[in-house]
């Protein structure tokens, strides 16, 4: 390729200029990363500066109020907790069961293909569409109303694809030899699944469940769509207290953390914005610690597992 007229110096300078691009791109790459990371830092800084002074014990035990200084998040965090409970109780068993079916039981036929494509598709449906589904199905067709039950089931459907995909990956990572050994001892399919595959896949399954729940706890749009109230100054009835039945809380109106934040953010008074910052701080610390747990679990899983 080289014509003999190209001198050594010329060649060196060409190489040097090409190498310079490597350095330039390395810097550009770091700068691009830092845009994302600086945004994260700014987001935190703003929440801490505005919200931290509001984080008193009263903030966690007071109901929302017209006076910003006395408003608190007790109805919001209790609501979030109860909605998450319903979501977890529905999404975890159904998600794990579908994953086991698809990974271990399903025959290769068109119906299995339909389920698989369908799950991939559901993961791409915008969350507000789940809200419309819940409005039409849970609120009006089933008559659950704007209750904790409706919200919990909506979020459960929303995170179902996440739980299913994570569980399938966990099951797929278990070597075939484990299954063969169990079958050789005379185990049935279900015994193989319940005694071996589920326990061994647990860290991976838990990772998926935690990531799903951390997504659900921050979801706002579907819950607004089902028409959750924003000003709730009472708690859902506790079971067996003052004549309430065991499951009365399921049908109670409620509010959740993101809705409380939305409500405070959309008020013009800056005093409420401080409340929103404080509530955001609580929510973000919650979701990030859930995410961190999931990342840690995945990391441990990769380290300790040698088949």
């Amino acid at each position, binding site marked *: 390729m080289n014509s003999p007229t190209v001198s050594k110096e010329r060649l060196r300078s060409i190489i040097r200029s090409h190498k310079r691009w490597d350095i330039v791109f390395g810097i550009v790459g770091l700068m691009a990363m830092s845009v994302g990371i600086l*945004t994260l830092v700014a987001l935190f800084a703003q929440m801490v500066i505005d919200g931290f002074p509001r984080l008193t014990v009263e903030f966690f035990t007071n109901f929302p109020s017209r006076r910003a200084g006395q408003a608190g998040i007790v109805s919001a965090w209790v609501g979030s907790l109860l909605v998450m409970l319903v979501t977890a109780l529905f999404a975890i068993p159904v998600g794990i069961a579908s994953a086991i079916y698809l990974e271990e039981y399903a025959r290769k036929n068109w119906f299995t293909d339909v389920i698989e494509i369908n799950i991939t598709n559901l993961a791409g449906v915008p969350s507000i569409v789940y809200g419309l589904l819940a409005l039409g199905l849970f609120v009006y067709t089933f008559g659950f109303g704007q209750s904790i039950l409706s919200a919990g089931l909506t979020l459960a459907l929303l995170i179902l694809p996440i739980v299913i995909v994570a569980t399938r990956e966990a099951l797929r990572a278990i070597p075939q030899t484990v299954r063969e050994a169990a079958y050789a001892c005379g185990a049935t399919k279900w015994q193989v699944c319940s005694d071996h595959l589920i326990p061994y896949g647990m860290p991976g399954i838990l990772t998926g469940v935690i990531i799903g729940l951390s997504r659900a706890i921050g979801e706002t749009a579907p819950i607004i*769509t089902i028409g959750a109230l924003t000003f709730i100054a009472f708690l859902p009835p506790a079971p067996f207290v003052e004549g309430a039945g065991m499951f009365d809380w399921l049908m109670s109106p409620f509010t959740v953390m993101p809705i409380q934040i939305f409500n405070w953010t959309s008020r013009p008074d800056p005093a409420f914005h401080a409340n929103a910052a404080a509530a955001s701080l609580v929510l*973000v610390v919650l979701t990030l610690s859930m995410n961190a747990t999931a990342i840690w679990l995945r990391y441990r899983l990769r380290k300790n597992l040698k088949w």
Partner: protein
Amino acid sequence: MSNPPLTGDARLAQLARSKVARKRKDRFVESILLLAACVSVFTTLAIVYILIKESLVFFSQVPLWDFLTDTQWTPLFDDAHFGISVLLAGTLSSSFVALLIAVPLGTIIAIYLSEFAGHKTREVLKPMLELLSGIPTIIYGFFALLVVTPLLQKLMPELPTFNILSAGLVMGIMIIPYVSSLSEDAMRAVPMSLREGAYALGSTRFQTATRVVVPAALSGIASAYILGISRAVGETMILAVAAGMQPNLTLNPMESAATITSFIVQVALGDLPHGSVGYQTIFAAGLTLMLLTLSFNLLGYWLRRKFREAY
């Protein structure tokens, strides 16, 4: 268990019985698992059924032609107009701003992480970047309204409090991890031998990355972009908080505008009675949104299939 051990035929019969019982239990469990797997199919069917059923109520009162061609969106006024193009304009301009941020930054980050960064750097930076997608969107909305908008107003004093620009910028940063991690996966799937070939011919890292790895991973990168678009189109809370909810037929990101998603939020927050035309509009808007994201998802799926390089 405590019975005296059986012998001979009796023992065989007992074994056979227990085998039958176990088989029966296994079949029972299988049908329960199948039922669970069908929940997701029912969910899709229910979404389609609800959206179409409620939209039909809407379209029985508003002709489809008006819905597609009207240039006003005033469903809550006495003089009601239902031109979806108004909301589509808001959705398009906000997604465009978001992609202007997410596509270049996401691509650069993906190239950097997969081709330039060392193992240690990647292990630290990648989880940090992924935290961006773990933050609830309502908090991004709050951030856009109370931090980014005032900042932009210092640069552009005429910018209104609610605007597409600041919502779009923040949305773009939120979408970066979606674009970068899928693109990075695609690049990492390119076999080492292609890179080694390029290096052997005297390419630098940059040349290898841009002329060999990126073209080889193009189908995966394109589908990452498509995923980014469908995220941007479906994003709700950032826009509902920071972009205002005024229907506005404009593509100018400096103005306030409603999108399909923020309109649904607006109606849901109000107290329209179930069954009124104004209320039914949210299902028609939802159907439009669903068709939009579905077509993007299908396009992404098709791109992956069609242009996948097999090694």
